C-alpha cells in the first residue's frame, strides 16, 4: 500500500486551456479527483473529452495554453509522458494501437518494470509475473493465446479493450483514465471490462471514466459525474446526473450554463 489516504487530492486541474493544431479545444477546465473516488466525464461528441485524456497522459502536439495540472503534488505538465506513466498515471486508450511482432506480455512486463524501477523496487520475477498476468487474464476472460500474440495484433475491438484493462490491472495505477473503454463492446464484454475496472478500486487510487453513455455506469458506479461541453466542465453531480443526461440529453445543461 502507498502512503496515499482516502480523500487525498490525486489530480487537480485548474483553468486548463488546450489547443490542437491551432484549434482551441479545452477552455478553462477545472477538475479535482481524490483518492478512493470514481469520476465519470460525459459529454457530446467533440466536447474535448479525448483531448483531456490525451493531454493528461502527456501526448505531444497538444499545446497547453493556460492553466495548471498537479498530480500527487507535482507539476504534471512538466513531466514527459513516460514519467507520468511511471508515477502511476494510466491511460486506457480509446483506440489501442497494434505493434506487430512485439509480444503483448513482453510490453506489459517492460511497463511493469519501468514502474517498479521508479518505485525503487526490483524487476519482477519472471515466474511471479506470469502468475500475475494469468490471474488477471482469467479476470478479463482472456484465453492463453493472448500470452503469445503481438500487442493488439489482429485483436478485435473488444479484445483490444480487454487488453487495455488487463494492462491496467497488472500495472495497478494510482490514477486510471479510461477513454471510451465501453465503446464497441457488447453487453457481456462490457460486464467483463467493468468487473476489471471495479477490481482496481481502492482507497488509495482513483478512476476517471470518459464515456459517452450511461450504460457503463450501471456496472461501475461513479461518485462524481461531470458534463464536459465546449471545452469546460459545465455541470457536476452524483451518479443520478448520468441518468438524467441519459434521459434528457446535453442541451439543457448547455442552456443552463448559458443562462448562468
Amino acid at each position: 500500500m502507498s502512503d496515499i489516504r482516502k480523500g487525498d487530492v490525486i489530480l487537480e486541474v485548474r483553468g486548463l486551456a488546450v489547443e490542437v493544431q491551432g484549434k482551441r479545444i479545452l477552455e478553462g477546465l477545472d477538475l479535482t479527483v481524490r483518492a478512493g473516488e470514481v469520476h465519470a466525464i460525459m459529454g457530446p461528441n467533440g466536447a474535448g473529452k479525448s483531448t483531456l485524456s490525451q493531454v493528461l497522459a502527456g501526448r505531444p502536439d497538444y499545446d497547453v495554453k493556460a492553466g495548471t495540472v498537479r498530480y500527487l503534488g507535482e507539476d504534471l505538465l512538466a513531466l514527459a509522458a513516460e514519467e507520468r506513466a511511471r508515477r502511476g498515471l494510466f491511460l486506457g486508450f480509446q483506440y489501442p494501437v497494434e505493434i506487430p511482432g512485439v509480444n503483448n506480455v513482453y510490453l506489459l512486463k517492460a511497463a511493469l518494470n519501468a514502474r517498479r524501477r521508479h518505485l525503487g523496487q526490483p524487476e519482477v520475477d519472471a515466474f511471479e509475473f506470469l502468475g500475475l498476468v494469468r490471474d488477471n487474464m482469467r479476470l478479463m476472460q482472456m484465453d492463453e493465446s493472448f500470452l503469445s500474440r503481438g500487442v493488439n495484433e489482429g485483436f478485435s475491438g473488444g479484445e483490444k479493450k480487454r487488453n487495455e484493462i488487463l494492462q491496467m490491472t497488472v500495472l495497478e495505477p494510482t490514477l486510471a483514465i479510461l477513454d471510451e473503454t465501453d465503446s464497441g463492446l457488447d453487453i457481456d464484454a462490457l460486464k467483463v471490462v467493468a468487473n476489471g475496472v471495479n477490481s482496481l478500486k481502492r482507497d488509495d487510487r482513483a478512476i476517471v471514466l470518459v464515456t459517452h453513455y450511461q450504460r457503463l455506469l450501471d456496472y461501475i458506479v461513479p461518485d462524481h459525474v461531470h458534463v464536459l461541453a465546449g471545452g469546460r466542465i459545465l455541470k457536476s453531480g452524483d451518479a443520478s446526473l448520468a441518468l438524467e443526461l441519459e434521459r434528457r440529453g446535453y442541451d439543457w445543461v448547455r442552456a443552463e450554463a448559458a443562462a448562468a
Partner: protein
Amino acid sequence: MASTPTDLDALVAQKYQHGFVTDIDADTVPPGLDEDVIRMISRKKGEPAFLLDWRLKSYRHWRTMTEPHWAHVQYPPIDYQAISYYSAPKQNTDGPKSLADVDPKLLATYEKLGVPLHERARLAGVAVDAVFDSVSVATTFKARLAEAGVVFCPFSDAVREHPALLEQYLGSVVPPTDNFYAALNSAVFTDGSFVYIPPGVRCPMELSTYFRINAAKTGQFERTLIIADAGSHVSYLEGCTAPQRDENQLHAAVVELVALDDASIKYSTVQNWYPGDEQGVGGIYNFVTKRGECRGRNARISWTQVETGSAITWKYPSCVLTGENSVGEFYSVAVANHYQQADTGTKMIHVGRNTRSTIVSKGISAGHAQNTYRGLVKVLPSAEGARNYTQCDSLLMGARSGAHTFPYVEVRNPTATVEHEATTSKIGEDQLFYCLQRGLSAEDAVNMIVSGFCKTVFKELPMEFAVEAQNLLAVSLEGAVG
C-alpha cells in the same frame, strides 16, 4: 518534456562505436593499380602460376568494363588509382604461427570489437578467422576442426594447401567477368576465408570471420569460398567494422558458396562498416558480390543479413538453384540512418525442378537515408514446379527518409508459383505514444517496435548473433526518434 512535440525527424547523432584506429606498423603498397601491383600481390602471397594468370585475366577484363550505375545510390566518382591494394600489419616472419605470435595490439583491437578471438575468451563453439585489412591474422580452433576433416583457413593458406580445390571451385559461382566489382576483386583480392566441409560432415561449430579495415586509403577486397560437399552442413557468420575516417573507403568483396547433393550452408552476416557521420561525410562503400549455388539435389543455401553500416551498400546475396528440389532463402534486415544509402536484395535463379525460394526483406529508413530493396526471381524453362515466396516490408522513421522496392520477376515456366507481398509503414506517433504511456523510454520503445518489425529475420540468426544484431540495431537507430 511534455510540452515539446515528439519529432520523428529529430535525429540525434549516435556515435559509431567501432571508429577507433589501431596504430600498427603496416606494410602498405603505394596507391595505384597496374599489372605490376597484381604480380606483387601474387608474389607476396606465394601463389601458384594459375592464380596469377587468373588475376591478370580478371584485371584485363576489368579494364574493359565500366562502373555500374543502375543502383538507386549516389556518390562521387571513385578514383581507382588512389586506392592502395595491399596493406598488411608488419610481421617479423611470414605470418603468425599461433596466437602468441600475433601482435598484442591487434588482439586488443579485436577485443575492443568484441571478437572472441582468444580461445579462452571465445564464445563456446565459435571458430573465428579474423581478417585485418588484407591478411588473415589468426584462425582459432584449427585443430578441433581438422579432426572433423573441416578445412577453415585464410584464403592465402588455402592457395598453398588446397590448390586443387581452389582451382576447381574458385570463380565457378561468381566468374571474374560477372560484374565490375567482381572483376576488380578477382584481380586484386588479398585474403579472406576458405571453408571445405567433407561429405557427410556436420561442422561441429559455427564458423565465423571478422573483417576490419584499419589502414587509411586502402580498399578491402576479400574473397570467401565455402564448399559444402555432399550431405554436409555448415553455419558461417561474418562480422565487419571499420575505423571512422572522413574519406570514403571501398570494400569490394566476393563470396562464393557451393552446396552439393543434400548439403546445406547457412551464411549469416552482421555488417557494421563505418556508415559516415550525421552529415554523410566518410563511410565505407560496400560493393559486394555474394552468390551461392545449390549445385546438388536437395541442397540448401540460406543467407541471413543484418546490414546496419556502410555509407553505401550495394549487395544482392543470391542463390542459383541448379539441383533438383534445392532450396534458397534470403532473410534481410537493412537499416539506413542519417545519409546512408542501401540498395540491397537478392536474386533467386530457379534452374532445377521443384526448386523453392523464400525471400523476407525488412528495410528500415531513418534520417535522410534511402533504402532500396531490389530483387529478382527468375524461373527458367527447366524449373518445373518452382516456387517462390517474397515478402518485402519497409519501415520509415521521420519524413525525410525513403523506401523503394524494385521486385523483378521473370517466369519462363508455366508450372511455377511466385508470390509477392509488400508493405510500407511508418513508426507512428501512435505506437510510440502508446509505449511511452506505458512507462517505456523513447529509445526502448523504438527498439521494441523495430525489433518486432524484424522478428522474422532475427529468428533465423544463430542465437548469440541474434542478440548482437538486436543490440546493433538499437545503436544504429539510437536517437532516430527523439
